[in-house]
């Protein structure tokens, strides 16, 4: 039951002792049995003793019993003979354990659809028809052809590739998959764009699709960019592939204006969809959670990560087709939901990791270790890493150099720690990506090897070299050498630093009282933290006050009422209505925010903040909006339907116009929710008045995921869908008492005239572009005014600035369930700060050499953080807790008394010297 589950877990035998295996690979090398590799989509071979892929965690080998010669015939034992640590154990048994937990999170994921059942695609018959996942492996550096793009039949580089969309999605004849898989349009564009980069002398890439569904943040721009790069987009669903003599493939299709075409391609990639595996369905049954008819786990829009069984949560593609960012959001959200009721037990089973005491390296001659990363082909594809390695060996103080495929992988980290000890290294340089993302990881490795983590520097040879000088490999290699030389010069001078300890204020601030903000505040309160909920309006609710139903058909108003009441009665929430943010001081763990409300100004202390300020519906300037009251926006339609001002029974004809202000040069993004909203509204009209003529004018119907079922239903109920091109926009005109909508039918190439009682505009969702709030919290906005996350795929609710998180429409337009999930995710992330009693601040702070200080006071005047003051002798001292390490004091002192740890004048001078 919820809060107290006993889970029976079976660990299958792997026939290799994980404690003894050092992943040297000797066993696999000697194993005589070859098996198609699942990881490379069976395009190449692995052995019967193997690791699934090079970055596997933990990196330990295992025997595939079904393919092992010893298990079949009783002899061989080659692996046992060659294992240097005696790790192979043929007697290994399965282990059954009972684990007691309070909550369960199901994240068993999806299975890529197997297109063999389609006879017309001949996937299992034609060598050069591959799935998108196979193509992904073909492009990968660790794939069967080491990243060389070749087709399977003759291993020659293809000159022409076709992608076929919706294979196993939006299809009920060969498979029972009426839903849209939501991710295939984007991955097909990505593959096409990457394939073009991989091609040595040009590639003709064509994507055959029904609707291009690039609805995510920055996806539409990516789509436009791909068009610019020459990727062809053909709106047609392919019904047959035939093979010609040289194993190339012939495709027949019909163009938009009805012309039948035949085209030959060297290769065809099937953009196969997502489905739930049979085993996963069985797992769901054992867990006792309900599934949708599509086999995705059933959840509600207001509780997106809760399954039907209390205490069992769900995230990722198991709960519906979705991409990486949303899966990551849901993962954090599920962690938040699962921890909510268990917050009292937080930390009770924790044991502190042991960090070995750092060695004293003061006075020792520098012994620099240089690790040059290939980053797959990200670096090695441009920079000659071997040459960089050889060059690094010649540099002063360098004691050790090696090259890694992925320096950041767990096994390389373990090895690095060992090398540091074995080689007695006391300064480390990693030439790889950017310190902004990877410095903490490598610093941890230094610590585990007994080195102070500040004895480290990075040479940014990926983001600032190989990625930006792709066409100039020689110069990029020279630059990589220069950057390594500069980093080694700096590293040689680095000294160990100590960190400052700070307490954390266990309170949070949530800005914005819409659905996202209220959910965030409630979850924070439930986890035991005082939460200040700041709303600029006089009442809570935001845009949801004007929304009728969700895509799953749940009514919004009753939920909103209940949510608001819970917020108002929650004792841990301090509500600040009609209140604005005036100023923000401080930093992670210790923010001091000035609020301006009806009662005057107030300073609130908090350790973390969630920005959930939402977005707004754009007021259209086109289609007679504002001139004729029968032209309405979506929110106006919903309000009208809820109040009864709009009565479907009295409406004879309604026309929905999509993309009003979205996907335009001025706003080059998709507003994501409007297609679904139009379809669910169209159904509402049809339901209450089957005779009502409902027409939807669209560019691409973007009813992603299970929303596709609504679109299907609408078509079956007689809703008319007419596509228009962006250069032939519909026109709305007054005609007598009514309205007439004119639209160019692209198949007939003629204008259609539709009489309408009501025209509903899918007006774009626009950001508040709140630059002042962004500046106060020191977080970025993108060019459309959405708050910019730290990493679009992997850190979708974080900012680069610690302690500040985001949720809801402030990030990008999204439906309610995604907003709620993001709110829960932001709470999860905020709690990682708030649940700590203290934090450690970086050691890169200023210090004053008092022998040189004359007490002139320039430094404490210029310090932007008021971190410097005069001591009793009138000389400057730094308050390390307040110092943010900007170095302004160092640059302004005439006597050279201050210096900045980690960025000393000597460090920078050494880099300048090494540059030439």
């Amino acid at each position: 039951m919820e809060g107290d589950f006993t889970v029976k877990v079976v660990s299958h035998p792997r026939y290799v002792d994980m404690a003894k295996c050092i992943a040297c690979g000797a066993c696999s090398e000697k194993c005589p049995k070859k098996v198609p590799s699942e990881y490379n989509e069976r395009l190449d071979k692995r052995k019967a003793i193997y690791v699934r892929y090079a970055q596997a965690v933990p990196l330990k080998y295992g025997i595939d019993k079904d393919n092992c010669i010893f298990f079949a015939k009783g002899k061989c034992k080659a692996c046992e003979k060659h294992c240097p640590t005696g790790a192979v154990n043929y007697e290994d048994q399965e282990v059954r354990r009972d684990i007691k937990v309070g909550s369960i999170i199901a994240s068993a994921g999806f299975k890529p659809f197997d297109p063999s059942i389609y006879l017309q695609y001949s996937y299992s018959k034609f060598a050069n028809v591959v799935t998108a996942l196979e193509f992904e492996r073909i492009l990968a550096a660790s794939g069967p052809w080491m990243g060389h793009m070749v087709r399977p039949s003759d291993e020659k580089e293809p000159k022409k590739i076709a992608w076929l969309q919706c294979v196993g999605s939006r299809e009920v004849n060969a498979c029972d998959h009426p839903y849209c898989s939501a991710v295939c349009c984007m991955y097909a564009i990505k593959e096409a764009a990457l394939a073009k980069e991989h091609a040595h002398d040009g590639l003709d890439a064509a994507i055959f699709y029904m609707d291009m569904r690039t609805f995510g943040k920055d996806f539409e721009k990516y789509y436009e960019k791909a068009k610019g790069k020459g990727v062809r987009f053909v709106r047609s669903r392919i019904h047959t592939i035939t093979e010609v003599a040289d194993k190339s493939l012939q495709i027949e299709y019909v163009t938009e204006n009805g012309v039948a075409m035949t085209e030959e391609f060297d290769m065809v990639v099937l953009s196969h969809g997502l489905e739930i595996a049979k085993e996963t369905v069985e797992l769901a049954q054992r867990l006792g959670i309900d599934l949708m008819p599509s086999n995705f786990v059933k959840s509600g829009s207001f509780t997106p990560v809760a399954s039907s069984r209390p205490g069992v949560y769900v995230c990722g593609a198991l709960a519906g087709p979705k991409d990486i960012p949303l899966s990551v959001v849901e993962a954090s959200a599920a962690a938040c939901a699962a921890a909510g009721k268990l917050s009292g037990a937080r930390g009770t089973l924790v044991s502190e990791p042991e960090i070995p005491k750092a060695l004293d390296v003061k006075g020792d001659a520098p012994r620099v270790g240089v690790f040059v990363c290939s980053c797959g082909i990200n670096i090695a594809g441009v920079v000659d890493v071997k040459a960089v390695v050889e060059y690094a060996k010649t540099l002063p103080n360098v004691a050790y150099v090696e090259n890694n495929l992925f320096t950041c992988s767990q096994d390389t980290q373990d090895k690095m720690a060992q090398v540091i000890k074995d080689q007695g290294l006391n300064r480390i340089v990693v030439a790889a990506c950017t310190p902004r993302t990877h410095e903490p990881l490598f610093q941890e490795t230094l610590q585990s090897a007994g080195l102070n983590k500040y004895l480290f520097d990075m040479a940014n040879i990926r983001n600032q070299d190989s990625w930006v000088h792709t066409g100039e490999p020689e110069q990029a290699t020279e630059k990589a050498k220069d950057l390594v030389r500069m980093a080694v010069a700096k590293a040689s001078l680095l000294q160990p630093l100590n960190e400052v300890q700070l307490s954390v204020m266990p309170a949070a601030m949530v800005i914005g009282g819409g659905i996202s903000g209220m959910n965030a505040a409630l979850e924070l309160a439930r986890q035991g933290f005082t939460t200040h909920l700041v709303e600029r309006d006089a009442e809570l609710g935001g845009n949801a006050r004007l929304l009728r139903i969700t895509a799953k058909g749940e009514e919004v108003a009753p939920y909103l009422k209940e949510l608001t009441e819970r917020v108002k009665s929650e004792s841990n929430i301090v509500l600040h209505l009609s209140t604005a943010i005036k100023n923000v001081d401080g930093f992670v763990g210790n923010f001091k925010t000035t609020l301006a409300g009806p009662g005057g100004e107030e300073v609130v202390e908090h350790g973390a903040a969630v920005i959930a300020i939402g977005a707004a519906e754009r007021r259209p300037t086109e289609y007679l909006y504002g001139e004729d009251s029968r032209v309405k926006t979506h929110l106006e339609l919903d309000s009208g339907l809820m109040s009864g001002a709009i009565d479907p029974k009295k409406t004879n004809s309604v026309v929905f116009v999509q993309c009003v202000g979205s996907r335009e040069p001025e706003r080059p993004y998709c507003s994501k929710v409007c297609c679904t909203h139009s379809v669910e509204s169209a159904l509402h009209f049809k339901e209450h008045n089957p005779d009502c003529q409902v027409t939807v004018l669209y560019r691409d119907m973007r009813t992603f995921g299970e929303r596709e079922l609504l679109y299907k239903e609408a078509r079956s109920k007689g809703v008319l869908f007419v596509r228009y091109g962006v250069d032939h926009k519909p026109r709305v005109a007054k005609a007598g008492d009514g309205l007439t909508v004119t639209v160019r039918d692209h198949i007939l190439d003629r204008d259609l005239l539709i009489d309408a009682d009501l025209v509903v505009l899918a007006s774009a969702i626009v950001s508040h572009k709140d630059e002042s709030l962004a500046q106060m919290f020191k977080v970025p906005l993108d060019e459309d005014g959405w708050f910019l996350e730290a990493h679009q795929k992997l850190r979708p609710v974080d900012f680069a600035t610690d302690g500040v998180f985001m949720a809801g429409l402030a990030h990008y337009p999204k439906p309610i369930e995604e907003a709620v999930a993001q709110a829960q995710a932001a709470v999860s992330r905020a709690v990682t700060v708030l649940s700590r009693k203290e934090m450690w601040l970086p050691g890169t702070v200023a210090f004053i050499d008092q022998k040189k200080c004359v007490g002139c006071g320039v430094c404490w005047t210029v310090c932007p953080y008021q971190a410097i003051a005069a001591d009793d002798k009138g000389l400057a001292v730094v308050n390390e807790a307040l110092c943010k390490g900007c170095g302004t004091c160092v640059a302004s002192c005439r006597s050279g008394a201050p210096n900045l740890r980690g960025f000393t004048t000597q460090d920078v001078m050494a880099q300048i010297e090494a540059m030439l």
Partner: protein
Amino acid sequence: MFARRRFAVLKNLMEYAGIEPGRLQFSWISSAEAQKFQQTVVSVTEAVKALGPAKHMIKDIRKVA
């Protein structure tokens, strides 16, 4: 703030020391402005390229520093 003022003064000083103003460039780019970064690199590189190799300053100016 202080940095901006300091740079304004420095630019004059550089000119006095014989460094063409085009060789020393300042800009302000936020971490989200990748495009602006790229454009600035291009324009800075072109400006310096147009001036040709630096000749005037390669002498000991430690007293100035």
